[in-house]
């Protein structure tokens, strides 16, 4: 089985979000970048397939050279090789088109991605990629088994879960549940040393056009101060929620 894991390079979850150039650009000053948390679940599941079923694991990012440390981290976790499609990731559809080219050229039969990237929260690349390739697709995956070319997938639905089956090739958009939190891999020293020698291939983009652009960013309006209610008078909270906030 040839697995491709799509890795999005995103600001660490603790990052303060600021904008520059008249609120037209994200301010990356002082921001730490990490593997998108949802993609970590996908990558860890891929390592399981590698260890238990002999799968090969390639990681890919569509982005400029600044994303390479994130790809190296994925190599340190255990991926065999990495591909960077050398272009700015501007919108979901163009990223999906670039990834589709990588999948076709590499003959991957299982593509693992995250449910959404935590920066733009687009929630679209995996579904678009699958549709462009005419692969099967399951979103919000919380469990994946593969036996030969048959896959069994659990997906989260509102208020429950659905179990699905299909043949490969398949694109998965994963989240927690694909593996448990405690099983997430972090790179160890040996992994980091080995990652330096693993191939990171930079490929030219097909040059897909973006169909969406960010015109400007905004921060939420400042909030009024919290109204405190005395712990001895909880009925005041009920009164406020009923008469002021009108939510009960």
């Amino acid at each position, binding site marked *: 089985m040839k697995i491709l894991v799509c890795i999005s390079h995103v600001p660490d979850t603790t990052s303060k979000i600021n904008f520059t150039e008249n609120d037209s650009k994200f301010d990356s000053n002082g921001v730490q970048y990490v593997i998108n948390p949802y993609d970590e679940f996908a990558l860890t599941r891929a390592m399981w397939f590698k260890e238990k079923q002999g799968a090969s694991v390639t990681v890919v990012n569509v982005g400029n050279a600044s994303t390479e440390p994130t790809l190296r981290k994925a190599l340190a976790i255990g991926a065999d090789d990495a591909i960077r499609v050398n272009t700015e990731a501007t919108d979901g559809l163009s990223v999906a088109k670039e990834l589709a080219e990588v999948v076709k050229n590499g003959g991957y039969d299982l593509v693992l991605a995250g449910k959404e990237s935590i920066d733009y929260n687009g929630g679209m690349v995996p579904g678009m990629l699958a549709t462009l390739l005419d692969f099967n697709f399951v*979103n919000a995956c919380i469990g994946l088994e593969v036996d030969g070319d048959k896959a069994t997938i659990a997906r989260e639905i509102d208020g429950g879960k659905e179990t699905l089956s299909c043949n490969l090739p398949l694109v998965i958009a994963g989240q927690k549940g694909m593996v448990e*939190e405690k099983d997430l891999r972090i790179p160890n020293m040996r992994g980091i040393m080995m990652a330096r020698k693993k191939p990171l291939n930079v490929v030219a983009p097909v040059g897909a056009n973006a169909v*969406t652009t960010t015109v*400007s960013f905004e921060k939420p309006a400042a*909030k009024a101060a*919290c109204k405190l209610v005395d712990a001895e008078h909880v009925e005041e909270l009920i009164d406020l929620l009923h008469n002021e906030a009108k939510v009960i």
Partner: protein
Amino acid sequence: MSVLVYTESSEGKFKKAAYEVTSYGKKVAEQLGTNLVVLAINSDDPAALYAYGAEKVLNIANDSLNTFNAKVYADIIKQAAEKEQAQVVIVESSSNSLYLAPIVAVNLNAGYTNNVVTLPSSTAPFVVKRKAFSNKAFNNTEIHSDIKVLSLAKNSFGLVENNVSGSTEDFSPLIIESGLTSESVERTTGKVTIADADIVVSGGRGLKGPENWGIVEELAEVLGAATACSKPVSDLGWRPHSEHVGQTGKPVASNLYIAIGISGAIQHLAGVNSSKVKVVINTDPEAPFFKAADYGIVGDAFEVVPKLIEKLKEFKANNS
């Protein structure tokens, strides 16, 4: 030309989100000077959408569609969009709609954005405001393609009554093969889901252990609320993963969110701050959640919550 809205129903019944997305679609159609067409699959009462501005409902009755399939449904939406020459296609933000929307977008060669929170600020160019950075910011996105696909963020627009004399047309689309088989669907029965809930009651590590969740569940029951938890609580196995809310868990966009024994870490707040009103109950007045909340009680959950339950029961008895 038209605006096409796809509404979901569960066992034939529309949920609030179906009316919200119809209300929104009506306003977008007005902005574009065109008509609204609403697509409904296996609904018992398509005419219920007229009250929110649905001039025309395309109604599909087909038992083979009782089980959701993203690819099949996306193809049906494409057929409806082509038949109605839709310029804009709008869906909800349920797990099913978020699953099918990117497929619809590729099928229609359309640009797509989810998390939309307002009406387009302009229609030519077509610009909408959406949530980004896990609710820590917004971005105004321009969609350049001829057809646009939008997913409306839950509870961001509200219901707008707009009674029109609508009509319902039967629609019999082609049903494609998907290659995916649904083996089983398990639902947690009888519980309000986080996705649908108007009120969410959430517990954190401050509750000390799973055996103490009775007060969270009872408070939720009195309020008709869904229960949720912080990430460490689900990581520790005190509560199921499906209750984990926050940046890397489920997003919450309810009218009221009550956080009990939750410190208010940035990753937690990111996922819940779309809720309209937030209440925190915490022993530590310095807990960051107090900066994000609208109302707060500094106190011990094991004393405050039982009192709150008792007073709420009195309140409910007097107000019903």
